[in-house]
């Protein structure tokens, strides 16, 4: 229970159904760290703030269910925050939500739930899980409310995790969820939806990385370097590779007659390569650490729609297995803009989530 409306409604729905429900809130990040990120006038952090725990506890009291806060700060920092920072420094653009799902929510949290005697966990994710008796697999589908669909962040879930997980909101529209929250008497019914990266206030991830460096005693000057064009011409300097992501236009500080974008970042030389929009188009990519969900690992090339970032419209492609079963090559029918290393690539067949992996 995050204190938000979704997980509160999940708890209320299951309680109303007569299930034996225990509420757990994960304490993942200490909001008192990195105080320079909190603007004057108070915190904007939505993750793990005292207010959120207060809200979650209040909901649990209203629903009359046992409730506990479990502390996973150590694991969250090691498995989510540090890799998030390291990925940026390595010239990639990470997705901490997926790391959190893979290593915290559907791993340590699932273990904790099992440890205290729970058979399954239920979360407020917008996705649908169903059992296919013919294939003997748990399948995942996009949520009924397509604007809220979170399957892009859930591609790492394995069969044994899906078997113990419920997403009761997957078949519901968000408006219906808020309506149900009001009916259930949940006080957070009108609470705004949470931001994308819970531990980064205001979405300013570069400021977060700078502040984290400072706390850890790492000099930020080590990440500064040059802005160069594809043919190696130096056109300016930059304050750190972690300020840039593939396809980014803003903040380059370079005057040119045409719009320029980040084409790639090269952490070894600390160079950021910029160029024209056309240079961002790519028709092929390699995806690693692939996890297959609704289908078994294919032996032959298969057709699918592939999504390369959360806001991307999944594009038709052919997925070709390689000698390494955890790696596939993706051939898009049409070149895609800003294929970004470090982001997820999720494979769909219509509503069905086939699987996914990480863009190399």
């Amino acid at each position, binding site marked *: 229970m995050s204190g938000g409306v979704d997980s509160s409604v999940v708890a209320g729905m299951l309680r109303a159904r007569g299930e034996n429900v*225990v509420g757990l809130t994960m*304490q993942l990040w*200490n909001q008192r760290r990195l105080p320079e990120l909190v603007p004057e006038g108070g915190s904007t952090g939505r993750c793990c703030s005292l207010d959120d725990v207060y809200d979650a506890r209040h909901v649990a009291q209203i629903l009359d269910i*046992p409730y*506990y*806060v*479990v*502390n996973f*700060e*150590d694991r969250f920092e090691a498995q989510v925050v540090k890799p998030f920072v390291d990925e940026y420094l390595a010239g990639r653009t990470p997705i901490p939500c997926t790391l959190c799902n893979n290593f915290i929510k559907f791993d340590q949290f699932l*273990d*904790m739930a*099992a*440890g*205290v*005697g729970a058979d399954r966990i239920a979360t407020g994710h917008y996705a649908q899980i169903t059992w296919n008796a013919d294939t003997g697999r748990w399948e995942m589908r996009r949520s009924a409310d397509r604007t809220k669909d979170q399957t892009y962040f859930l591609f790492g879930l394995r069969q044994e995790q899906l078997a113990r997980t419920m997403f009761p909101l997957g078949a519901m529209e968000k408006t219906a969820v808020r309506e149900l929250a009001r009916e259930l008497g949940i006080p957070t019914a009108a609470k705004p939806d949470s931001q994308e990266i819970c531990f980064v206030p205001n979405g300013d991830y570069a400021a977060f990385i700078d502040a984290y460096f400072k706390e850890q005693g790492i000099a930020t000057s080590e990440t500064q370097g040059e802005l160069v064009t594809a043919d190696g011409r130096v056109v300016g300097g930059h304050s750190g590779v972690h300020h840039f992501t593939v396809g980014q236009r803003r903040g380059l500080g370079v005057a040119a007659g045409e719009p320029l974008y980040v084409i790639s970042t090269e952490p070894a030389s600390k160079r950021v390569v910029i160029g024209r929009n056309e240079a961002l188009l790519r028709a092929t990519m390699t995806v690693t650490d692939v996890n297959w969900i609704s289908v078994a690992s294919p032996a032959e090339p298969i057709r699918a729609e592939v999504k390369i970032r959360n806001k991307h419209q999944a594009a038709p492609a052919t997925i070709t297995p390689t000698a390494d079963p955890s790696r596939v090559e993706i051939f898009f029918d049409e070149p895609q803009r800003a294929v970004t290393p470090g982001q997820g690539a999720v494979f769909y067949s219509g509503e069905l989530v086939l699987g996914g992996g990480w863009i190399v």
Partner: protein
Amino acid sequence: MSPEVLEAMLPIMTEVFGNPSSIHHYGQAARAKLDDARRHVAAMLHCSDSEIVFTSGGTESDNLAILGIGGHVITTTIEHPAVLASAGQLSVTEVPVDRTGIVDPDAIRAAIRPDTKLISVMHVNNELGTIQPCEEIGRIAREAGVAFHSDGIQAAGKVPVDVRAMHADIYAISGHKIYAPKGTGALFIRKGVHLRPQMHGGTHESRLRAGTQNVAGAVALGAAAQWINQHAAAEWPVLAQLRDRLEQGILTRVADTHVNAQGSPRTPNVTNIRFDGIDSEALLIALDLRGFAVSAGSACSSGKQDPSPVLIAIGLTREQAKSSIRFSLGRSNDSAQVDALIDAVAESVAHLRKLAPAYA
């Protein structure tokens, strides 16, 4: 709260409502009740009633004792945060404690400096139940001309307390540890010891604690002290038997368990047990869901990420500290409850260990 405490305090809220500082007969009636209570508390600590100041609880008592003396303070690494955080406002030496959970008086003596004004050593540790050699430490302080404060919050009602025998100059107690309500406490201040008040206002409590007294709370504390003066000594062997039954039951039924600070002198009500390979947070929740309230670390520190500083201070590793649980027994417990608790612990630990393949 015990029934006799409730019975004593209820009329204060309805009939004896006067302000004890008022001259009129309502005030005098309240003053009489307050004075009675002070005598009972003084009898519990073996001091004179004029040496007792009522406070809002243990934390306030410890703050008044330490900040009221000031100067260089010698304390230990196993104190409650109320002591450590107060001493932290001053110049402080924290004397380490070994695996026995018992402070070495010679180490206290060695830490005395010319500017040392106060030695503050708890009488009984809150997490381990270990009884500290306060008589010897008090003698050392007296010889050195340094004031001696003891945090007796976990001692009152659990062991004999004689502030004269231990040469205490100041001694703190809390109501809710002796079956009086939360928000009540007292401080013994030996006649002739001068404290700087920490609350400013009227002349209440011998000018040491401004603010109209919580008469009902003080009367409750007095009633709790009166019960202890008459009955506690008879209760101790019963509690010790229950505690031994619990320890033996768990050590016999559950493999790889250890009693922290086992061989040391301890109060009869507490045992702190370490379960190898177990996350104490999961065990605590599992036991709570089965109706048994136990704790991991002091309740005042819950929600914190770090393992119990007390367990770290006595030389446990981080992992060992995070696999330890404190069991506290009280007046209402019996052997049938203890046996049911042993069953619940054995089953919960077996379940948790089965889920953790890393546990060999």
